[in-house]
């Protein structure tokens, strides 16, 4: 396989970097992204949308160009449907608090899956408690995919919101969101898609999926931390009350009443993260230059190599690695018999391998699969076969270091 050496594009990988296998937590940033952020702060930093002078006009242009770039990237109909937030968590909170509180009442049901990250779970618990709605869960089939029987049984006329991750951050399995959206719409529910783990790795077209809402973070797709996106269908966003209020999201403010700005500004209170938007826009350009076909090819190859090698170690247990649908991104979750994941991560760190250990912000899923915690190696396109080799070699040392063998 003639991999392009992407590592040159990433300042953090110059020298002797560790095998960075925590890409589901956050990704590294290419030069182009760092330059875009520096270019904004060093070139035309000013508060957008307000000033009439040159820098402010340029800042506004950078910010709105980034919005257009996100719009094209996920094929939204209009830039008014792209709300910039801090991250996927804030995007999901926005939907829960604004749409959820305004539309749910007692006896309504919110349906989520047991694989949700806490960010697509806790806000719904809060909204359920405030409105009296019930929070229900779709459980998994044996292979880790959502159970079809569960979906049919639990998605009913009482369901008003189906909130589902497109890719589980623990199992790495891709859910068929398009089919789920159609089923949700059949019963009159809206579908909220957590795209934090999918948008960086697979093409996501909101019109093709017919998603009502899609949330994702910039920092998991080469962009900086502190910039995220909420996509919402225009007719839904227009009906929703503001989430945060204050400057920049208003039309007229009088002593007792306010009329709100048009979309998307209605949902963007206060000075926004222009530098973050510039970075995200550069990240999108970089991803598009590489292309999702290439990203998938590299990730699938590395994932198959890692799973194959880890399966040969009799004391390694893998989770979510048995799906026969080929619907897996580069996430390999595992445990070593007798070794706690935190000990594993410490030992791997000493070998220059960075993985995540813990509950991965998915405690209900951990409980469901009967583990307190797991180890997770997650790949992105810049990872290499050498990284996989370092992972496997280090895993093979763990039991010896811990005096278990």
């Amino acid at each position, binding site marked *: 396989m003639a991999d392009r050496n992407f590592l040159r594009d990433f300042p953090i990988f110059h020298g002797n970097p560790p095998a960075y296998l925590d890409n589901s937590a956050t990704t590294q940033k290419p030069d182009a992204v760092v330059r875009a952020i520096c270019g904004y702060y060093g070139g035309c930093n000013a508060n957008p949308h307000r000033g009439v002078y040159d820098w402010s006009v340029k800042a506004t242009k950078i910010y709105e160009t980034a919005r257009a770039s996100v719009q094209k990237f996920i094929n939204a109909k209009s830039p008014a449907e792209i709300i910039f937030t801090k991250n996927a968590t804030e995007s999901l909170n926005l939907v829960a608090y604004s749409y959820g509180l305004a539309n749910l009442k007692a006896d309504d049901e919110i349906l989520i899956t047991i694989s949700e990250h806490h960010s697509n779970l806790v806000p719904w618990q809060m909204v359920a408690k405030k409105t009296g709605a019930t929070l229900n869960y779709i459980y998994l089939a044996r292979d880790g995919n959502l159970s079809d029987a569960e979906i049919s049984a639990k998605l009913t006329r009482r369901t008003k919101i189906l909130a589902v991750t497109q890719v589980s951050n623990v199992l790495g399995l891709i859910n068929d969101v398009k089919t789920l959206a159609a089923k949700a719409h059949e019963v009159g529910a809206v579908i909220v898609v957590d795209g934090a783990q999918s948008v960086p790795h697979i093409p996501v077209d909101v019109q093709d999926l017919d998603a009502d809402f899609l949330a994702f973070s910039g920092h998991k797709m080469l962009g900086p931390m502190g910039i995220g996106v909420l996509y919402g269908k225009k007719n839904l966003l227009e009906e929703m009350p503001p989430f945060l209020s204050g400057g920049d999201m208003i039309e007229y403010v009088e002593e007792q009443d306010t009329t709100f700005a048009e979309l998307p500004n209605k949902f963007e209170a206060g000075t926004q993260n222009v530098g973050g938007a510039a970075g995200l826009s550069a990240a999108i350009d970089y991803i598009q230059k590489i292309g999702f076909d290439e990203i998938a090819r590299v990730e699938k190859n590395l994932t198959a190599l890692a799973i194959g090698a880890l399966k040969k170690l009799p004391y390694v247990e893998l989770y979510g690695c048995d799906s026969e649908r080929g619907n897996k991104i580069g996430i390999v979750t595992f445990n070593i018999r007798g070794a706690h994941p935190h*000990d594993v991560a*410490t030992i791997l760190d000493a070998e220059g391998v960075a993985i995540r250990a813990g509950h991965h912000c998915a405690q209900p899923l951990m409980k469901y699969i009967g583990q307190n915690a797991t180890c997770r190696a997650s790949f992105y396109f810049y990872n290499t076969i050498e990284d996989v080799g370092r992972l496997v070699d280090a895993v093979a040392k763990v039991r010896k270091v811990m*005096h278990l063998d």
Partner: protein
Amino acid sequence: MLEEIYTELLAEHSQSAENRRALENPTLKEHGHNPTCGDDITLELEISGGVIKDAAFTGGGCAISQASTDMMIELMRGKSVDEAKKLAELFIAMIKGEVTDDAELEQLDEAISLKNISNMPARVKCATLAWHTLDTALAKA
């Protein structure tokens, strides 16, 4: 570095079953956990006349948290509540790197072997969990 942490002593203590049980007549029971990593223990103490007569724990977690708990229980058995509080403070100070003098740390007995965890910020919480839990429990004694 790793050899200094994952010693045979640590392996023995983390796998030892002797102190991993429920007490028949606990006078104090305290639950402690590290929400970010999932170490989770319940510490039981039998205190009479101001002395820790017996101690045991149930729960689970990484080797460092479990070995540290086990070492702590062996150290505390037979100690007065006041002595136990001081030892817990001393251990936490050692892991924070605030006390480094081996002569002073000798009182911690086998738990002194965890001293090097002060160089591993990511694992400090694992090592101190039991000792913080004990501290909370003894505040009620």
